[in-house]
């Protein structure tokens, strides 16, 4: 699957996107974030504050319990901050 990172998640990981093939036990967004955290120190630090992370599965906003089975594109990012202050 293709992984996309935005805003400070992207900056902390040091990548805007990457390809990954998660192992069989990774069923949900939360599982995926746990697994990604083991990829590098930068991943672990960027993904440490779980409550500050949001995700989208194939373009739809998704909670931590959402399934990632068969997904082609998963995005991980901070809460959105709208168009104006």
């Amino acid at each position, binding site marked *: 699957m293709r992984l996309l990172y935005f*805003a400070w998640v992207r900056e902390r990981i040091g990548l805007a996107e990457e390809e990954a093939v998660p192992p069989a036990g990774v069923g949900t967004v939360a599982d995926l974030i746990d697994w990604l955290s083991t990829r590098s120190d930068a991943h672990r630090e960027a993904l440490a504050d779980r409550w500050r992370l949001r995700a989208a599965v194939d373009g739809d906003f998704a909670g931590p319990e959402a399934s990632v089975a068969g997904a082609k594109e998963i*995005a991980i990012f901070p*809460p959105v*901050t*709208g*168009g*104006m*202050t």
Partner: protein
Amino acid sequence: MIRIVVGVEPIDLPAEQLLVEAVPGAGAVASFTGLVRADAEAGTGGEGRRVEVLELEHYPGVTQAALTRLAEEARTRWSLTAATIVHRVGPMRPGERIVLVLAAAPHRAAALDACAYLIDRLKTDAPFWKRETRGGEARWVDARDGDTVRAAAWE
């Protein structure tokens, strides 16, 4: 008409207004324009560093789809003749237009309500992230709970 534009170009308000007015059936056009503010840092009593550059990052494709869905919801709910959302991304300076919402309907109440709905919802439903630069130092802006409350009030 539904018109959604997400791009780095400055927002041409008069041109967008003319497009909406050209659609038959409208008796009212409501618009909202958001400008980049030069706000001083919070908690500094207006004395802190002001915003020099505001940069907006987005999730291409998904942004377009989210704004289109919102505009279509508003068109159905208020029987709009036209709904336009133009959103700037990339770097901007204070005073520049960051977002434009236009809603056209046969009468003013529907146009005004739809316009307010669209601007409240797009702040929470669309994947945008803001980064401010003050004193040459860039910082990602945190989400504000108030925006979620305002959007939920429409449910």
